[in-house]
């Protein structure tokens, strides 16, 4: 477990990411028992979480878990009915702190009668920043989201995806310290999603904290440092991505072994047959750079013919479903079937 960089290439970008530049322990967002009820309907039952400065924080949960309500509370668009919280050191709802926030709402709509540049110009004015450099700030935000050539077109002529890009530009305007993105890729095509990942990576490089509310788990898995999983208005897990997906495993295609050989491999980890001819070993009993070669040697020593060794890790989706008590087990756990059984 000491060298996550040696894991599968798909996992490496997640765990080998450089640490955020900001001082550790300095919270960008901190909430304690934050609650919101709309009449008798409880949207958020008591949210307690900490988002560190400079990290990309994923906020996950099923529909109706209270994710959007939480974002609105953090931005100050709605008031909590219980608990407390701070954003960039200021209490929730603080007006001044909004100068340092960028926000892309889930429901992204901008004045249809204005051009993209005009929308950004108004937001720049409202951000209460000096007028000097406004044109450059607007141009830079449009460039960043790929709308530079549509700057003088009216929003009414934009596709939904382009409007979401515009919303992203609004959120990124003026180099905010904290950017809250509520489902930022919901209307985007694969190219747009890739762009958003690049933008988020760029924000991380600049030390900007990103709070990403998304139900697209693969997106979150690719860009986030840490995640909180919420269910029924409460955080059920808050941990680093490496920690979350850290149940590393290896799949070996091997023949010439008996079914009972799997049980004899317990000193490497938990070994089970995972489909015909596939052995899965997970919950490693030591550093994986030692376990994997030793495991292969042992298999060969037992008369096994090794055809392939595939590093693997649990997907965020599997962990997500596990944590929410869903049906993730079928995907997450190895089959107990023997070498000849169907997967």
């Amino acid at each position: 477990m000491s060298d996550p960089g040696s894991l599968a290439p798909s996992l490496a970008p997640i765990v080998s990411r450089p640490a955020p530049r900001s001082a550790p322990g300095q919270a960008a967002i901190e909430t304690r028992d934050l609650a919101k009820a709309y009449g008798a309907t409880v949207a958020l039952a008591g949210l307690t979480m900490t988002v560190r400065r400079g990290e990309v924080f994923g906020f996950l949960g099923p529909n109706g878990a209270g994710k959007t309500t939480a974002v609105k509370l953090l931005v100050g668009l709605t008031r909590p009915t219980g608990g407390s919280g701070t954003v960039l050191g200021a209490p929730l709802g603080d007006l001044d702190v909004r100068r340092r926030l960028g926000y892309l709402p889930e429901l992204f709509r901008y004045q249809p009668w204005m051009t993209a540049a005009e929308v950004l110009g108004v937001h720049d004015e409202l951000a209460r920043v000096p007028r000097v450099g406004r044109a450059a700030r607007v141009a830079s935000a449009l460039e960043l989201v790929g709308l530079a050539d549509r700057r003088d077109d009216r929003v009414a002529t934009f596709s939904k995806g382009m409007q979401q890009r515009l919303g992203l530009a609004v959120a990124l305007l003026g180099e905010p310290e904290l950017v809250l993105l509520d489902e930022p890729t919901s209307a985007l095509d694969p190219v747009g999603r890739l762009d958003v990942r690049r933008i988020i990576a760029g924000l991380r490089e600049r030390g900007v904290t990103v709070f990403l509310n998304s139900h697209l788990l693969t997106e979150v898995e690719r860009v986030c440092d840490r995640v909180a999983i919420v269910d029924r208005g409460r955080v059920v897990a808050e941990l680093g991505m490496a920690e979350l997906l850290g149940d590393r495993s290896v799949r070996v295609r091997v023949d010439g072994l008996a079914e009972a050989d799997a049980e004899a491999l317990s000193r490497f980890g938990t070994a089970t047959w995972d489909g015909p001819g596939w052995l899965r070993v997970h919950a490693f009993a030591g550093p994986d750079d030692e376990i994997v070669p030793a495991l292969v040697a042992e298999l060969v020593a037992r008369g096994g013919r090794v055809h392939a060794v595939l590093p693997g890790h649990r997907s965020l989706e599997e962990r997500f479903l596990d944590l929410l008590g869903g049906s993730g087990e079928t995907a997450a756990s190895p089959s107990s079937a023997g070498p000849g059984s169907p997967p």
Partner: protein
Amino acid sequence: MSARAVLVIARLTLREAVRRRLLWALVGLTVVIVAVTGWGFQRIAELSPIKGPQELLGLSQVLVMIAFMFSFVLAMTAVFAGGPAIADEIESGQALALLARPLRRGELLLGKWLGLALVLVAYALAAGLAEVAVVALVTSYLPQAPLSAAAYLAAEGLVLLTLALLFSTRVGPVAGGAVAVVAFGLDWMAGIMGGVGRILDNDVLAALTPLSRLLLPSDVLWRGAMYGLEPSGDILGSAGRAAAAFQVSPFFAASPPEPIWLAWSVAWVVLVLVLAAQLLRSREL
């Protein structure tokens, strides 16, 4: 409260009025109304040349009725521009992005009010004075206080705009506009019924006037506009019985509104704006 933020929103609202052709629609409508009524007044002057106060009184009544049409257009503009002003932004989601900026909800409301108020005042003054000018040109009739009549018309528009914005903070754009239109009509009717009550010495009916003015001071301002468009007291005095007959007309005001009602109108606008800001503050987005 930041004046800068209010002005940004007011400018945005004005720009929207221009871009969405609200302003141009009003200008076009005014030009048509002024041209058509100018032609009508010319025909009246040809058919019945002004010989004395009775003809002047008759002309003033036609002018007041045309002003009532302007007042109606103004009321509809106020209500249908004010009704969706906040409600639409909340329903569409535009408010989410705006209010995530350092912008108080009260500033958004006041900015909207200011922007639309400028449109209404400009319309009332331009349309009112253009009509008076054309009438003066073709008939040589000049009302006793055209400027104050236009100002009263503008103030009536502001009262209705404020009412529409109040509804806009809580109910949908169409419902808010519709309720404000009904309130405008009821207030006008209450003013007439109160006048009838005074003539008949019926206290219950007469009490409708102050009651409706307290709830919505639009009719009292309209009466100020009517008074300004009438001939001066000297001319009325010399009109004798004819003038007395006009006392019961719903398009005649024997006196301008008392200062207390003007003060109340200003206070009403302020109070309703404060109430609207409170309602918007507690509205869930």
